[in-house]
Every structure is written in structure tokens, then in C-alpha cells.
């Protein structure tokens, strides 16, 4: 079930290494999952997330290192803050917050990433939610 466009953003150290492992194993990411590799969580800006939604992404997932594992010390926490900031803006312009996810990850967690993507792909809007702007955009596409 690969209906929704997902943009996956992650830092090179953790997510990047795990995605590389997937590719080495011959497990390519599904067609409508775009992988954006950042040098570090500290280089993430909410603008990157907004641009992803602007360009038609239905959901965005950001991956960063666990606390204490970031080589820039706080890059992962910075990334999480940027995700919170982006989520607040998205809610204000009619995009439901559940469409933006943040996960901490280690380089060895290739299988987990694979599962998270699948779960994120399958995620439905909460039962009681009114249709948000992203659903509207998708149904016209």
C-alpha cells in the first residue's frame, strides 16, 4: 500500500547509516518515499519540512540520533525542536500534526526504520478529525 508521498529526512550518522544498510541489503525504499540526507540534525530548519509539504508530501518523518549519541552534542535535540516548530506552523495552516513524525534512531536500526515507514504509510487520520488541508490536496491530485 504505497499511496502517500512520504519525505524521510535524517542525519547521516544514524539514519543515513541505517538507510545505507537497507540499500546494501537490496531493500530499496518504496517509490513514493523520498530520502533526504542531512549532515546532522543541527542542519535541519523548519523551512525544509514546510517545503516538503509545499511540494506535495503527504507526510514527513524526521530521524535523528538518540540523546548522547549526536556527534554535535545537541544536533538531535535541535532537530526535535525544529519539528515541534514546524508542526505548530502546519497546524496553523490546516495540516494536521500527525502528518509530521519524529523518531530517534541508531545506525543499527535499519529494520525498525523499514517498519516505521510502513506504519507511517498506513496511518489513518484520527476518527474524529475533520479533513485537513493535506487530505484535500491529495484527493484532488
Amino acid at each position, binding site marked *: 500500500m504505497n499511496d502517500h508521498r512520504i519525505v524521510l529526512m535524517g542525519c547521516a550518522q544514524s539514519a543515513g547509516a541505517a538507510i545505507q544498510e537497507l540499500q546494501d541489503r537490496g531493500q530499496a525504499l518504496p517509490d513514493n518515499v523520498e530520502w533526504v540526507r542531512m549532515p546532522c540534525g543541527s542542519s535541519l530548519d*523548519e523551512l525544509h519540512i514546510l517545503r516538503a509539504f509545499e511540494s506535495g508530501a503527504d507526510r514527513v518523518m524526521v530521524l535523528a540520533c538518540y540523546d548522547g549519541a549526536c556527534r554535535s552534542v545537541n544536533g538531535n535535540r535541535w532537530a526535535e525542536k525544529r519539528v515541534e516548530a514546524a508542526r505548530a*506552523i*502546519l497546524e*496553523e*495552516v490546516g495540516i494536521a500534526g500527525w502528518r509530521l513524525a519524529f523518531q530517534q534512531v541508531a545506525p543499527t536500526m535499519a529494520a525498525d526504520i523499514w517498519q516505521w515507514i510502513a506504519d507511517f504509510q498506513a496511518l489513518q487520520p484520527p476518527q474524529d478529525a475533520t479533513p485537513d*488541508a493535506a487530505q484535500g*490536496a491529495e484527493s484532488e491530485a
Partner: protein
Amino acid sequence: MIVAERKPLAEILANVQNVNKLLVVGCNTCVAVCLAGGEKEVAVLSSALRIGLRDTNPNIQITQRSIERQCEEEFNAELADDIAAHDVVLSMACGVGVQTLAEQFPTAIVYPALNTTFMGRPEERGVWSERCMGCGNCVLDKFGGVCPVTRCSKSLLNGPCGGSENGKCEVDPKNIDCAWQLIYDRMARIGQLDRLLEIEPAKDWSTSRHGGPRKIVRKDMVL
């Protein structure tokens, strides 16, 4: 510095929802420093607006610019062509910048994207607090460098009031220090506590905004 923050997006969207060509202009001085209206914030806001308007106004053209300092006409002059070519200008400057643009380009429609709040200082990354309300007659020499006019919620000159508890102001104990606790502690440290025995007389508010909007003319500078 002047501190401001971005208006709720719903308010901004309401003002631009029917605009064809929108010019978003940031300012790289105060509002850039307080992370509200600089070049980066212009990019973020423009992207957010495009997302927010894609159902109702998908063909909106949004141009992004930013100016060194929007309160000075010579910097704004470079916007003349852009302003003429767009229907509405959304200024991410403080209230001074917004008004300067409107005065300089009187046929332009200029809307503010920020709520300008106060003159203050950064306390730590991401935190700014008010320090000066421009009363026009500085009395910081009498109070150990802590302004009772601005930092006391009641502007008491002979404080504290009964609402000072554990060094906090009862109006908002989480965020507001009791100015008079700060004054007392500071004056004690610099050995000027005895000055607080003097009664500070009623303030002449006419030098502040209460006396009307103010203007300063340096005749020695005007040719």
C-alpha cells in the same frame, strides 16, 4: 532592542487570502535578532502561506525580500519597483518598519506580520524580556540600575506592594520577578540602601507616551 513575535497565522492568512501578488519583506535588524522577521523568517512564513492558501488561493505569487533596516527610507528605496509590481506588502518588520514603508509608499497596501511588543534584552537563547518603556525621564540612577517603571507591574516608585512573594510578582510569578526585590537586593549590594528611605515623588508622566507621541529634533544636526 525592539522585540516582536509573529502574528498567529490565521490572522495573517485572513489579510492575504484574496491577494494575487504578495510581497513579503523582512528586516535584518531587531526582528532578525529576536528570530521573528529576518530573512529566514520570511522564507518560513512564505512557505506556510503557500501551504495555507493552496486550496483557496493556489495561484498566489509570493515574492520574498529582506531589507537591512525597514525604518530607514534609504534602505527601503530599493523596494520601489517590487512594491509597484505587487498588490499587497506583508512587512515582517516591527511596527516602526511597517509604518515607514506605508509612509514612504503611500499608495501601497502594507500589512504587519508581527506583533511588536517591547524594548528588551535577550536573557538566553530564545528568551527576551522587557526592560524599558521609554518614559522619557530615566531614573535608573536612583534604583540600582533596575527600572521600577518598566519592571514593576504597577510602576511603583516606592515599592514593593503586598504582592511580592519569594522575589516574584503576583501578577505572573512564573515569569515576572518582583522589581522591588531586585532593586532592594541590588541597592544592598552596592551600598545604597539608604537611598530607598527617600520618598520618590509622583512621576511627571508628560515626558512619556502619556503626553502624546514624541519627537526629538537635534537642531545642531538639521541643515
